[in-house]
């Protein structure tokens, strides 16, 4: 069986979530790699949009910025941030891929501060377009390495909405109906959210990882699906496309 690293696994698993004929709003790095991989393996009609204005580009390589000139290379439209967010707000964009410094059991994300907002221990970039994408796009996907520092009981700051306090709290908040976190893809497992409580739930384990590992590397109690799958490792095709076409310089998948 082919060797692969955990980033290659996460990107491959993430790419499989993106259905052909749907649209995804992505940032730079791993999410963009997953979208590019999906386009080249089974979802040629996946529409990629970048918050700065690029619509459906033919990406010649990984962008360094969601506004750099790669993001509208041979695009259908080089528009505005307003155009992109309006597509999202109107329900045209099916998925978004996000990450963050912290995530909680409801899939809420922190990318703003560690410590008190008035005098932060660490200041992060803030929402950027994450809060917008997570508010408007139908399904939010999160790709992140898993550990107890990242997966926390309580966020220092709720930057980007997941299921908020769980249950029907998201819908009650006023955010568009039918939107919310869909799957969390870590270096150990895939989680979804239990339909009633909206709590994070393990649905699939990556090769070599046990339920125990996953729980030990999480700062809150994870629910477990009735039947837990084994994550399919990256296929030969996924790996070769990822390594040769998507990220030949291994910016994202590393060495």
């Amino acid at each position, binding site marked *: 069986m082919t060797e692969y690293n955990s980033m290659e696994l996460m990107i491959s698993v993430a790419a499989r979530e993106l259905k*052909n*004929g*749907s*649209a995804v709003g992505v940032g730079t790095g791993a999410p963009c790699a997953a979208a590019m991989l999906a386009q080249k393996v089974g979802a040629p*009609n996946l*529409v990629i949009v970048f918050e700065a204005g690029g*619509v*459906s*580009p*033919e990406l010649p390589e990984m962008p360094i910025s969601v506004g750099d000139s790669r993001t*509208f290379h*041979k*695009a*259908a*439209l*080089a*528009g505005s941030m307003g155009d992109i967010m*309006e597509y999202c*707000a*109107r*329900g*045209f964009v*099916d998925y978004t891929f996000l990450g963050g410094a912290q995530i909680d059991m409801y899939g809420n994300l922190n990318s703003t501060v560690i410590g008190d907002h008035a005098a932060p221990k660490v200041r992060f970039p803030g929402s950027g377009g994450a809060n917008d994408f997570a508010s*408007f796009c*139908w399904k939010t996907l999160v790709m992140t390495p898993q550990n107890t520092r990242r997966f926390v009981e309580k966020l220092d700051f709720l930057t980007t909405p997941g299921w908020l306090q769980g249950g029907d709290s998201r819908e009650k908040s006023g955010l*568009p*109906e*039918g939107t919310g976190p869909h799957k969390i893809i870590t270096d150990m497992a895939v989680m979804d959210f239990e339909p009633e409580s909206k709590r994070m739930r393990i649905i699939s384990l990556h090769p070599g990882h046990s339920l125990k590992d996953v729980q030990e590397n999480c700062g809150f109690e994870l629910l477990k699906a009735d039947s837990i799958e084994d994550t399919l490792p990256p296929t030969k095709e996924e790996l070769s496309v990822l390594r040769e076409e998507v990220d030949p310089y291994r910016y994202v998948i590393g060495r």
Partner: protein
Amino acid sequence: MEPLVQGKGPLFTDPDPDRARRIFRKKDRTQTNKVMNLKKAIESYVHDGEYLAIGGFGANRTPVAACHEIVRQGRKKMGFVGHTATHDMQILSAGEVYDRIDVAYIIGLEARGLSTCSRKYMESGKVKVTEWTNYSLTMRLKAAAMGVPFLPTRNLMGTDTFAHSAAKIVQCPYTEKKLVALPALYPDIAVIHVHEADIYGNARFKGISVSDIDLANASKRLIITTERLIHTDEIKRDPTSTRIPYFLVDAVCEVPYGAYPGTMPYEYFSDEDHLKEWLRKEKDPDAFKFFLKENIYDCSTHEEYIKKNGGTQKILDLRAKELLLFSEVR
């Protein structure tokens, strides 16, 4: 946000963004060949009782061929957005296509005078009316495009236009100023005429955009009629020039001179003689009936209509009148 006052006009469309989102969610994002003839496009996407919007500005970059086809196919009981509706409305009135209308500018053909046919129909009692203004309707489309149920503006207040609108006056939570809240307008179907489009529906046009970008975004279905098809490579070479991306579009119809007898900027100017003939013929019901038979009902295509009114030579004459092509040499 309790409204302080509200207009008493009927609201013909649903401003709810969540219901609209469910429809937009279902729209296919795949790049597929959407080219079809106009007859097929109108049959497939324009239905009795739906709410219709026509792009352009009255007799400028207006999908006239599509208006003829809608009348030819006998659509009825439609809602219509009378957003600077001039020659387009004149055609649809002749077919009594609509029975309710959001009014900003209707009946008139601007400097050319008023349409007897449109006026008679509007005075017939067959049409429900809500009053707005040009900018109000633009903002209503923009609200829909933005996926919000309303947008605030500072026009309309203090007038009967407001009183006969379906707008509401609210108080600003920051400045306590009064503002008009304009409800989002999501047309069921819009038709927009452009200079160039590819087979997927990526479309572009030159000159003023009027309200067509917001209209394209707000409409649940969209038919593009285009002077000519271009290859997708040309779109991808210059994505800055794209005005409407393909995933908003349901049908692409190549209709050369599709805005005739109106103006298509950079292509041909309006046929003022023919537009005058329309206005004249409308005054005599029998003559007008025959005129419509001749020019719409007995034509199977827009090309036939143009042939009857001078054909290629007429088009060349109108191109010579289009100063965006000819101004330098005058």
